[in-house]
């Protein structure tokens, strides 16, 4: 199974009975507040262009009301767009017939919801088989596959419990198992971990990252938590008032925030866990000094390794152990603290 990228192009969503009439006005600069006051329509999304990497985790981040949940619902068309297209494997999801859409949802997508949305009258096992059941997979086969995934998310032994008998974290594991059992290329996670308490959230993030290493699905993850976005996202898009303010890798966003809004966001971020050594390394001058540190190591890990080895200098090595740059402990530390310019901008 090869996952494909998802291309969102020029996507607009205007909520209201005659949303289509206002697309041109919005394209010509009609604002959200004005649209709402003058015409009673709500601007959900405005000119969204994102290409979501195949087999990677795309995080869409924004505060409530930014349109992130609206955006993810366009990918399996739980919400119809007012204008624009969502391409998967060359096909526009927004133009599919009802039957094609149903098949697309059944076989290509699976979704995990913020409030779990489990069927309360079904046991964990019966919930997990749901996707396969409506595809018409036989009972023995679907239960075999579901049982595997229940075990993978760590719920073995709870197959015959009802959702209400489980804690929130365990319920979301069921939600994840239900989505994974579907064996779809696209995994849509709508604030899937936002309702969980912090420790369990980190735990569930680890579950997702571990699974993703082998599954390589195209994951779209919605969150309002920047730390979560940075931990999970191969690529991150930040939404505000229905518009994409910035998109890129976590490092790019933390090091070069596009505006004050994002600067305020990234101010509190632990840079040591986001920024990689190769981002701040200096070119090699002469022979490599100190201990070797692998490319892709985050600053915090590098600092820890150097401190415990009692070294102040190190060199960065690539996959083939060839030295590519030099780095010092003081450079690492100065990159880990938030620059004063950001502090000033955000304040």
């Amino acid at each position: 199974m090869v996952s494909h990228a998802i291309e969102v192009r020029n996507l607009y969503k205007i909520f209201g009975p005659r949303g289509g009439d206002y697309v041109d006005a919005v394209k010509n600069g009609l604002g959200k507040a004005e649209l709402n006051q003058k015409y009673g329509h709500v601007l959900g999304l405005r000119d969204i262009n994102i290409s979501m990497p195949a087999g990677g985790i795309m995080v869409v981040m924004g505060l409530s009301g930014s349109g992130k949940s609206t955006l993810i619902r366009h990918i399996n068309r739980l919400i119809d767009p007012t204008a624009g297209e969502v391409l998967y494997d060359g096909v526009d999801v927004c133009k599919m017939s009802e039957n094609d859409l149903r098949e697309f949802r059944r076989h290509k997508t699976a979704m995990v919801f913020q409030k779990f949305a489990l069927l309360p009258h079904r046991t964990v096992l019966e919930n997990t088989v749901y996707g396969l059941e409506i595809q018409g997979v036989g009972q023995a086969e679907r239960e075999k596959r579901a049982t595997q995934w229940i075990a993978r998310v760590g719920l073995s032994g709870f197959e015959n419990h009802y959702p209400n008998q489980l804690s929130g974290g365990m319920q979301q594991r069921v939600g994840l198992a239900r989505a994974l059992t579907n064996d779809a290329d696209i995994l849509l996670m709508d604030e899937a971990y936002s309702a969980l308490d912090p420790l369990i959230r980190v735990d569930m993030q680890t579950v997702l990252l571990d699974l993703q290493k082998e599954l390589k699905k195209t994951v779209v993850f919605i969150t309002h938590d920047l730390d979560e976005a940075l931990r999970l996202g191969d690529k991150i898009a930040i939404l505000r008032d229905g518009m994409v303010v910035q998109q890129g890798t976590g490092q790019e966003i933390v090091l070069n925030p596009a505006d004050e809004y994002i600067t305020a966001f990234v101010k509190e971020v632990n840079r040591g866990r986001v920024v990689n050594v190769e981002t701040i390394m200096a070119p090699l001058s002469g022979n490599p000094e100190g201990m070797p540190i692998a490319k892709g190591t985050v600053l915090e890990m590098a600092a820890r390794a150097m401190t415990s080895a009692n070294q102040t200098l190190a060199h960065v090595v690539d996959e083939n152990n060839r030295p590519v740059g030099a780095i010092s402990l003081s450079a690492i530390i100065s990159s880990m603290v938030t620059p004063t310019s950001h502090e000033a901008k955000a304040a």
Partner: protein
Amino acid sequence: MAGLCESLPDFLCKFPAFSDVSIRAVRKSVDDGFKALVRSYVNAIDAMVQPLQWFLNYLERLFVSSPWPIILLIMLAIVYFGSRNIKITIGTALSMLAIGLLGLWNDTMVTLAMVTVCTLIAILVGIPIGILMARSDRVQGIVNPILDVMQTMPSFVYLIPVVMIFGIGKVPGLIAVVIYAVPPMIRLTNLGIRLVDKEVLEAADAFGSSGWQKLKNVQMPLALPTIMAGINQTIMMSLAMVVVASMVGVGGLGKNVLQAINNQFFTVGFLNGFALVAIAIIFDRTSQAYGKRLQKHSEVIHG
């Protein structure tokens, strides 16, 4: 205020109604037209309701002519396996024995047969209509006022056309009871489906459920507690209505009550009345306990 009328024109004091003659003419033509309509379709109508008549007679004969211990045992078994509650079962046994000792066994069986058939028909009619209402606001807009009329119109009034169409007997009684008892079934089915959690429905959509799969896997199971309440209400209302239906020829406890009213038989009236109450309580407790058992999964163990 009375004096005011003398200084005012007549039409402001006495409401200017249409003349008696014209009202009478309209009334007569509607009545005659309806009668003619009924007369020309009488055979078709009889043929249509014949299966109901057979079913009702069959069930009544089965209940009345089977030995009472068998009926009692079956009843207790249904109550026990429905409610899994020994108290309700003992209560049922005691009240049915009391009914038998007071000589009301056969009448009670006739009433039971009637209520059973009425409830089954009300469920068969009510659930599909309720589902249609839940799926379309337009259907809801049309059906709701009809239900209002059915519930507020005095039952004696629609007994008139029912008797004109079907004559005197069990079937018109049955139809009158169903008209009276079906609205809660329809309303609560509609309500139950509309109250189903939007998030769960969205999840069902996201996994690609068809409309039928959504109805079968999500909407009906989640609406079931409300639908059970509807069935319970329907049973209660059928029991209340069998007394009125006895006026058009339905036998059983209702007929005894009607005779007691006509002859001022105080004791007979109350005994039959209490027999109805006993059946009502048995049905109510059993169906409620059953409904609650269906909700086993909603018990919260973790916080």
